[in-house]
């Protein structure tokens, strides 16, 4: 005991730094977790969480039997994996490219331009998407028309929903996500590059053999983290983009939970659905973490 205390005492400033974050997570993430028990109960507000009757797996059963179960699962996974495949490599490519630029105006402008969309709020963002894609007045359709293609109604075609969602997300977040890779790249030892140049390595070779291996741990960590959030699509953007015509491909678990839980007030049911979502999420996270550990010897935990 005394040894630990001594250590804590010695590093007390560091512990003090962690304390707020620790408390935030404890209060807002761990304590509310006891609420998930209402997934196994018929929650009645007047009786409180403990007073409500237990019902076992009734709400889970109901979800699995629901007409929309497979659609929801398919859409949630579909959109997430699509985002991951398209959205994950792009910031890396952007960072590698930016890194090759000499410091100067051009680099600064490029960075600012790619960051900027990150600061647009979701509501404004969706408003812009809808305006750009409007079949009669939208910018994109004018371009299509000019190039001799047919005008398309992207927002009401379920086939396009995922693409519009993912690409607009990429546009918004790529610049911002590349920052962390740029930081990692700045840690590359210049001597390695100098040696490689002496050996006659081309620029691409140097990127491949020096830059990429250096940022590999960062990549793996970020990959694991994005897999961890694969099922937790933000429902705001999807809700804003939804309409009856694209519902078929835009109905996802998080929008369903919002609909059932907050709008229809079926708390126990929505909690059960949310819990199911989190369990899948956790399974994915742990497996990817394991695989990464085996292959790369880098892992989150």
């Amino acid at each position, binding site marked *: 005991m005394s040894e*630990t205390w001594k250590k804590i005492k010695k590093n007390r400033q560091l512990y003090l730094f962690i304390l707020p974050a620790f408390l935030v997570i404890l209060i807002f993430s761990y304590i509310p977790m006891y609420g998930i028990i209402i997934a196994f109960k018929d929650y009645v507000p007047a009786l409180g969480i403990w007073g409500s009757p237990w019902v076992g797996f009734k709400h889970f059963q109901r979800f699995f039997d629901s007409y929309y179960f497979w659609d929801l699962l398919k859409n949630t996974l579909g959109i997430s994996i699509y985002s991951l495949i398209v959205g994950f490599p792009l910031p890396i490519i952007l960072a590698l490219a930016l890194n090759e630029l000499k410091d100067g105006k051009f680099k600064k402008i490029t960075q600012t331009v790619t960051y900027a969309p990150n600061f647009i709020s979701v509501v404004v963002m969706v408003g812009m998407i809808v305006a750009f894609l*409007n*079949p009669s007045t939208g910018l994109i359709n004018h371009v299509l028309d000019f190039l001799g293609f047919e005008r398309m109604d992207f927002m009401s075609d379920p086939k396009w929903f995922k693409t519009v969602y993912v690409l607009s997300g990429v546009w918004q977040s790529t610049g911002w996500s590349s920052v962390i890779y740029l930081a990692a790249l700045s840690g590359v030892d210049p001597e390695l590059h100098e040696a490689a140049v002496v050996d006659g390595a081309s620029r691409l070779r140097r990127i491949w053999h020096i830059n990429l291996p250096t940022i590999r741990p960062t990549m793996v960590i970020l990959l694991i983290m994005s897999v961890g959030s694969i099922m937790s699509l933000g429902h705001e953007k999807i809700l804003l983009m939804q309409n009856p015509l694209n519902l078929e491909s835009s109905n996802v678990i998080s929008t369903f939970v919002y609909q059932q839980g907050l709008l229809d007030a079926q708390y126990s049911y929505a909690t059960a659905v949310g819990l199911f979502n989190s369990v899948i999420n956790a399974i994915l996270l742990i497996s990817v973490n394991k695989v990464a550990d085996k292959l790369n010897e880098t892992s989150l935990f």
Partner: protein
Amino acid sequence: MKVKKMTKVLSGLFICSMVLTACGGSNDSSSSDKKESSVKLTTEGFPIVEEETTFTMMAPNVGMAEWKDMPLFQDYAEKTGINFDFVTPPSSDFSTKLNLALASGDLPDVIYGAGSGSLTDSMVIEYGEQGTFVALEDLIADNMPNFNKLLEENPEIRKSITTPDGHIYTLPTVSMNEPSAIWPRGPMWYRGEWLEALDVKELPKTTDEFYDLLVRMRDEDPNGNGKKDEIPLTDVKMESTRPWLMAAFGLKAFGVQEDDGKVTYAPMTENYKGYLEFMNKLYSEKLLDQEVFSQADEQKKSKGQKNQLGLFPDWFSYFTTGKDEKGALEDPMFQPLTSEYSEEAVVPKSPGISRGTFAITKEAESPEALLRWVDYFYGPEGAYYINKGPEGVLWEWAENSKGEKVRVYTDIVDTTNVEETRGKLTPAYGLTIPNIDFKNTDDLMIRNEADDELDTSFADFIATETESKLAPAGEVPMPLIYLSKDEIDQIKDTQTDLQTYIEQMEAKFITGVEPLSNWDKYVKTIESMGVDKYVEVYQQAVDRYNQN
């Protein structure tokens, strides 16, 4: 060794958190036993309470003003001695916030102006049964002279607001005298200049004539700009045109409807198939706005202001066209249609009562005081008061040259936009609030100047159009009934699934994404969702209603 200590620390934290949560959960139980009320009521009239007192009120804010700043509440608080602390989340967020408040037990004394969209029937039943809402039926006779009189004169109202277990948990909006009270939502309006340009003397009365007119609107450049930019018919997600167009096929509801005591599910009937075929034809021939399912209301309005629309739904036509009341007189109301499916014109009609506008929770110290507070608005004087506010804000008394006392707008009112001022002074703007609507008689009308002649042309226009076109065809699609808790539990899942499915499929059938040859498959899916049970439950409830 280290691990063990870590465990200790963690378990300590865990215990802490359990204690914290236990504290958090305990507030539910304390308030259930009734406290002795410290609020002393007066015997009659104003003020209502002997000593000034304050309650909390939760209500949706439509974004015109803070409720505490509204002159109506300030003036009425002075009269009654009852103040309020307002909790008013924006109306777009209100359902969510109300649900959270009810689920967490962090209750206001009064829930005001929610309407059955936010304070749904199933919530009323559930929270009523749990004792969260106070049952009002025994308190009404003693504390609500105006409302009680209304109930005695119209037994329908009592029937409509009483739940199956015999309680009244919420008070309604009653609008029986206004012509627009029978509108289930805003009607559709033709653009008058277009009809003139096309030399249309008589509005279409059948779906065929209707189709022909839309074709002419599309092809003959009625807005006269030389461009082919006319959109004959528009809407946002079909929400407002659906009731009027489905009616041409003999259907009154996008769900269950009742005819002579028999309940059917409209979206699986042959008539509905006829409606889909017709709408699909309109869509594929570009007679129906191609953006009908993806546009927002603002986009629809901007098309109306650019004179691109021939027929559109809105509460009043000038909201879409951007004209003023005078200009709106030339835009006639849609005439209900007949078709081979329905020889007689039928349109859905509002029952004139909306529930869920006023509920008192168990937190309230004196439900009696609150009922007396709200009762005033169910009488003629109070109904006017809550609509136009106290004297001296929106209107004031003046004397005209003939020596008569008339009401005129005050100086602060921009008379071209009266609603703007009105929205800032009273909650009776954009919300269904607990009150009764009375017809605006001449002595209640407000003039710009004391000597102005009364201009009632717009009100008269609305009244005539409604009386001549909608009233003869109007039928209430479903009586205002409450399902019991048990019945709600039986159909809850089916209802959500069905609603999502039919909305989605309507859009697909109309736009042709799904061909109508898949109709049988569609009906089968609806059946597999349990529609039989769903209809049966409603049938049961309607039978019960008709027996009482």
